[in-house]
């Protein structure tokens, strides 16, 4: 047992750290750190820089542009990326549809889609959730009926994150209405420019446009855009969701936010000094740091165990990462909002300009939206209640 990184791993960490902090534009990283809205171009710029370096999709098979990194290297890469406040390579492209096509797609699909997925020439969105389904994903109602060399797709998707930017959607649709729930579902790739696709914004409690409803009305999808076998889509979705869950602890993001809180606390007036002088505040911050350090080790244990696991089956331990990781992400946003205090109330204070004192609190505008927005992390990707059910069944045998 040796819990330290090897000298090679430390060198690797330095390499990626330096790259992130020198090559990804500081303005983009500042937006991420400060919880400000990223433009489509910010995502694209950042991912192209990674892609040019060969780092947009290091976890993919080497033949499609991946790196032959160890699990530890991949872990280091993601942690450093988050701690440098680099935008995550677009999840839907790099962690979802890409691996599915690389694993289950046919050669033509691989050739056509994968290069544009990793370069973000195509922006993908996810068409899984439906109104009324929630965590019971398999009860989806969208139908795809085969007519000649097309499917005709009808239905409605929701919670489609960043769908307003998307060129393509990967979508679950019911191709056999007579089969049992999970059976009879297929995995389709839909061009968002196809007639019949309508995107409607949903404004979330942070006041932003991040998610959408997508209406599919008589949408013609060529049969060549079916991934894998008809009616086997549920298997591919499970594979994809397992990928989603392992990355969900977002420890690097929480670390980055804690570091930011510490910096801000030193300049935030409180009483005769600053919030940094408030040992009570710092003790509560330390409590979160402690749990986060524990979770980081837990994550490293899961990463180390991945070497000997069947990669197509989800590790139930990832549910622990999901539960605790989301709780800690939320806890950091609560501390950020506490730090902002009454200066966290204004929504668009900058419309008024600042004097020196208010400019000390210019950051505070995004504290509440960040707090509001992060309530989602215990809901999406399988709510924390669902994760509890998963562990109770799969690990505890209850």
């Amino acid at each position: 047992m040796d819990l330290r990184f090897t000298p090679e791993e430390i060198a690797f960490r330095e390499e990626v750290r330096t790259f992130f902090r020198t090559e990804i534009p500081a303005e983009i990283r500042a937006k991420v750190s400060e919880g400000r809205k990223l433009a489509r171009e910010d995502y694209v710029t950042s991912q192209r820089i990674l892609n040019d370096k060969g780092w947009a999709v290091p976890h993919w098979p080497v033949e499609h542009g991946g790196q032959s990194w160890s699990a530890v290297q991949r872990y280091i890469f993601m942690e450093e990326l988050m701690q440098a406040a680099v935008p995550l390579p677009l999840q839907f492209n790099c962690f979802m549809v890409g691996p599915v096509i690389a694993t289950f797609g046919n050669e033509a699909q691989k050739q056509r889609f994968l290069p544009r997925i990793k370069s973000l020439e195509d922006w993908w969105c996810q068409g899984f959730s439906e109104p009324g389904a929630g965590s019971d994903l398999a009860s989806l109602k969208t139908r795809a009926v085969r007519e000649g060399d097309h499917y005709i797709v009808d239905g409605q998707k929701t919670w489609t994150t960043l769908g307003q930017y998307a060129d393509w959607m990967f979508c679950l649709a019911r191709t056999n209405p007579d089969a049992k729930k999970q059976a009879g579902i297929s995995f389709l790739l839909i061009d968002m420019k196809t007639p019949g696709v309508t995107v409607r914004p949903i404004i979330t409690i942070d006041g932003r446009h991040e998610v959408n409803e997508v209406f599919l009305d008589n949408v013609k999808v060529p049969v060549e855009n079916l991934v894998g076998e008809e009616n086997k889509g549920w298997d591919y979705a499970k594979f994809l969701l397992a990928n989603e869950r392992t990355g969900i602890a977002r420890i690097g993001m929480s670390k980055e936010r804690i570091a930011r809180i510490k910096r801000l606390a030193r300049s935030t007036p409180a009483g005769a000094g600053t919030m940094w002088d408030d040992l009570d505040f710092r003790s509560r911050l330390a409590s979160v740091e402690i749990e986060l350090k524990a979770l980081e080790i837990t994550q490293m244990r899961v990463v180390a165990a991945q070497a000997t696991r069947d990669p197509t089956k989800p590790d139930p331990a990832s549910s622990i990462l999901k539960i605790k990781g989301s709780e800690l992400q939320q806890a950091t946003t609560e501390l950020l909002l506490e730090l902002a205090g009454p200066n966290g109330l204004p929504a668009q204070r900058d419309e008024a300009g600042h004097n020196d004192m208010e400019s000390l609190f210019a950051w505070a505008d995004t504290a509440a939206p960040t707090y509001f927005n992060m309530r989602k992390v215990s809901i999406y990707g399988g709510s924390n209640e669902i994760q509890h059910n998963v562990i109770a069944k799969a690990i505890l045998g209850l």
Partner: protein
Amino acid sequence: MNFDLSDEQALLRDTVQRWAATIYPGLEQLEAARRAPLGFLENRWAELAELGLLGLPFAEEDGGFGGGPVELLVVAEALGRALAPEPYLASIVLGGGALRLAGSQAQKDALLPGVIDGSVRLAFAHGEAQARYDLNDVATTARAVEGGYRLDGRKSVVLNADAAQTLVVSARTAGGRRDEAGITLFLVPADAPGVTLAPYPTHDGGRAADVVLADVFVPTEAVLGPQDAALPIIERIIDGGIVALCAEAVGLMEALHELTIEYLKTRKQFGVSIGSFQALQHKAVDMLVALEQARSMALYAAMMVEAEDAEERRVALSAAKAQINRSARFVGQTAVQLHGGIGMTMEYLGAHHFRRLAAIELTFGDTPFHTRRVASEKGLVGAD
């Protein structure tokens, strides 16, 4: 000991509830009002005047109705339930509170008729960006000059300042930034030369402004209450604000809990209503416990806000606000969690309750601030 409302109080509650339910039956009406330039519609304010609510806390000899803390509780809870956006807190409870507690008869005669008939609104320009929740932290200055004072400084997050004709401004007439002594209150017309407002929406759907005072002249008659000794009055103004916020939060939590229970009963998943899942049931029960604890402390705040003993009052009000804050956070977060995705959207009414509850936590002192105040004094349980 008697928890029943008097007939008059019950009538008041029913009146306000009925008005609020009629005017704000849903999100659409609420959003329409919020989109108005001031964040509410002036004709609604006039309706509140007609209902007698704007004169409620003022003495009968001043044209008011002599209502006390229980009446405030009833009104704030009913308005809170409906998320009514009118500036009752800013204008009547805070601004009006300042006049009520410190105004000379001349000042009351000059302003209260307009406040009560709805033609004049007030705002309380006290907080400053560096002060957080410390009421004694005032950097704004008032220099004595011939015939009056000249004010300089910046007031931060002044609730509904853009809707006010007259501002109650605190400024330092003596002492250093954090001294307890040396603070004085002034009545300042919002359109006085040198007053600039920088208004903005707040994250709970309300409005506030930063108020810049640049060499603003006010005459000696603008001094409200005692020279150099306004801090105890400011405390009592904020105490009234705390009672109003506690009651408002109870109304919000009650409505949000009802929405959640309704959702648990109707929302189906895995073929059954999600309210049949024991883990969710237990969380809904914990919400109820938190709500009932908050309701009790709102009553306690109303009971204690007029207590003679300043320390006893301070401990009680801080205890109430700390409990309200804790309950508000738990109820708000749990409601969103139990709703799942829909609770995350602005299209859902409950999300607005959640946002307002979060804002209440940040207003007039958060949980650590008030808990420490309880801890640093004699506390609630005597140890003799």
